[in-house]
């Protein structure tokens, strides 16, 4: 109500402050806690080989989660990332005959096109993101399976390098994930596009009035998500030396969404926490690893993950109306 005159900002109650702190830093604290726990109680945890494995496993989740974070920042969602991974994997195999660079390019273009399609549905047709990307989830995986109906192996030196080589002791896939994190962080913090996309999610009406090209921004964000998912797919394929569109990336969207939400990026849009997203992915990964190493059943991971999501979103509640 524009009627009420000056209202002084209320001093934050201690409960609100705790919740706010939890939302911002909870994930870092949790990761730290888990790390310490493992250092203390898990044998062989501090070994290089272990770290390598963990990082390699978490890399594709991080990459797709980065794209997901951008989309969620605009108050949207992208359920198609897993299917895009499968499609990109299929494209790699199909175009491998022309050489690795072409194959990779084809995969990336495919991902971008799928993203453009989703973005157009959302921005121009006004379809809700969940339905638009749901349609893509179903259709694109089907397409991937049509193109490559069964597990197809290949031998390509360039891809082998991509999948297994290390740079300065770190696996290439991990380096790429780290590089992409840096790029996305840069985009969000330092570019017009990053500022604008956050404004679109924060208050779309205000963004529009400020002259922002809202529709173009929305399409771009879904294109980026598709692109990143394609990268993840290419890397996974390179590691496996095989393409299996039936199972590649299955349920990846769930992991990505979890990582983003737990990392402190609100589903209501308006803020993107890049580092938090990475931490969220690491948290889930560590959780799984901890449970496995201590011979706790896999079922626990799922249930704990569920609780963590609820807690993360509950804590985020009073922040944005």
């Amino acid at each position, binding site marked *: *109500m*524009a*009627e*009420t*005159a*000056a*209202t*002084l*900002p*209320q001093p934050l109650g201690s409960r609100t402050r705790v919740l706010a702190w939890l939302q911002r830093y909870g994930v870092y604290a949790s990761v730290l806690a888990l790390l310490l726990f493992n250092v203390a109680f898990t044998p062989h945890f501090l070994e290089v080989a272990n770290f390598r494995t963990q990082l390699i496993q978490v890399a594709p989740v991080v990459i797709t989660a980065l794209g997901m974070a951008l989309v969620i920042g605009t108050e949207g969602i992208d359920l198609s990332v897993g299917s895009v991974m499968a499609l990109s994997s299929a494209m790699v195999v199909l175009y491998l005959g022309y050489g690795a660079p072409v194959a990779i390019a084809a995969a990336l273009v495919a991902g971008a096109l799928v993203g453009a399609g989703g973005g157009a549905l959302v921005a121009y047709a006004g379809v809700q993101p969940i339905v638009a990307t749901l349609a893509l989830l179903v259709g694109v995986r089907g397409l991937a399976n049509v193109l490559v109906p069964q597990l197809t192996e290949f031998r390509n030196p360039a891809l082998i390098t991509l999948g297994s080589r290390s740079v300065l002791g770190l696996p290439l896939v991990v380096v790429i994930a780290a590089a992409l994190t840096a790029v996305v962080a840069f985009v969000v913090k*330092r*570019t*017009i*596009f990053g*500022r*604008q996309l*956050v*404004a679109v*999610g*924060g*208050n779309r*009406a*205000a*963004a*529009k*009035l*400020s*002259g*922002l*090209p809202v529709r173009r921004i929305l399409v771009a964000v879904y294109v980026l998500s598709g692109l990143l998912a394609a990268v993840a797919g290419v890397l996974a394929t390179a590691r496996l030396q095989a393409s299996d569109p039936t199972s590649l990336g299955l349920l990846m969207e769930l992991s990505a969404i979890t990582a983003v939400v737990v990392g402190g990026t*609100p589903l209501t*849009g*308006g*803020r993107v926490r890049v580092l938090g997203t990475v931490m969220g992915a690491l948290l889930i990964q560590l959780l799984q690893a901890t449970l496995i190493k201590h011979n706790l059943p896999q079922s626990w991971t799922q249930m704990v993950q569920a609780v963590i999501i609820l807690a993360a979103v509950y804590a985020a509640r009073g922040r*944005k*109306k």
Partner: protein
Amino acid sequence: MDNGSAPVLEARGISKGFPGVLALDGVSFRLGAGEVHALVGENGAGKSTFIKVLTGVHQPDRGELRLRGEPVTFGTPLEAQRAGISTVYQEVNLVPQMSVAHNLLLGREPRGRLGVIDVTGLHARAADLVAGLGLRLDVRRPLRSLGMGAQQMVALARAVSIDARVVVMDEPTSALEPREVDTLFGVIARLRDAGIAVVYVSHRLEELYRICDRVTVLRDGRVAHTGPLDELERVKLIALMLGRDATDVRLRGQTEFSGDHTAKNGQPVVEARALSRRHQLHDVSVRVRPGEVVGLGGLLGAGRSETAKAIAGALPFDGGAVVVAGHAVRKGSPGAAIRAGASLLPEDRKAEGIVPTMSVRDNIALAALPRLSRAGIVSEARLDRVVTTLMKRLRIKATSPHQMVSELSGGNQQKVLLARSLATGAKVLLLDEPTRGIDVGAKAEVQALIDELAAEGLGVLLISSDLEELVEGSDRVVVLRDGVVVGELSGAEVTEEAIMKAIAEGGGADG
């Protein structure tokens, strides 16, 4: 029309406060059976709060409500409803997707065999209700397929059907065509005949005089006047609403506006030519020259915000054109308007202004990002310079530019939005209620600022419900009523009485 017997609804000494503001101060009110009572007042007068107290949305801090002589308290709107007070809101609070019949009888559907809803009976009963108000419509249609007028009447029918003794109507005609208004008034007349009392909240004076028996005027949370409407002259009514004495001309000069700005002659910095938009604007033309402050006068719903938004590219229009600094601006594109040099400060800063998840700095820079970047990368240094300069100039009180804008006071938020407009290098500022809802100190600062900016050569289009502010701040005033320009005053002509007169009578022939 009966007010000899005991009132059906009575409020005694109602006071209600919120943090920082006293919205109602000892308001008393009497409503008789079969009476149509107008409740008027400008924004901030306490009208909405009073209605909310009557209908159970708020509970008064002091005072009491009496229904048919018995003291009552309403903890929720539902309780008020059950007690017989129904409200028909401006935004029809029914379910648009459901049919008229289902909306009318939600929660009270007639049952048939086995306890399931008797659909034929439902439609029959709904048709009866509707016919009882003198209407004829297909009750099976979805509510949203009807025009706003018909929807309002369905809401009214529902209110009546739950045995309401008092019906509160909040701005019921703001979205209606003249013909629909006639129908509505026919319905209200029936209600009156049936002994139901109506509280009619509106700013449309002709309508009040048509349908209402008595009037209560609220101003600054208090009752400024209450009595029969036919004893009150139109101009006097407006004067009461706006807190001015119609015959007593006193320049109190409590605003910070210093007086004349010397408008540079030559090409207007913005020109709206014959803007038209269905239901809202009819052939509206406004011109602002550099260094000039042009006020848009008129009551709520006159089309002031719509004019400003149309110029700013935020409201597509059907006819006419907008020219900024000599260049025609593509309609419907805020980006184009901003690039041409016109920037809008929206009326509702919460809904359309501030981005709550971003900092002060980012909010200020939002509309100017393309100018503050190179090759897509934001030049932080340049941005910081612009932000610091603006924050200092506008005296924005924040712990730092990085503070969350949602933590600032209303006045400072408004300044942030003003800074956002200035950061775009605007040549003309379209200010829609720039001092609404902010504290006195910030108000003064903003007014002084507007003066300064005009002196520097910016053009300003000023919309304000505060008549004093409008008069003292503007060089010229264009008066609107119901989307039509009914008067244009300049220089010495710009006085509160003249504006009020124009609002009340202006336009001459039927407009």
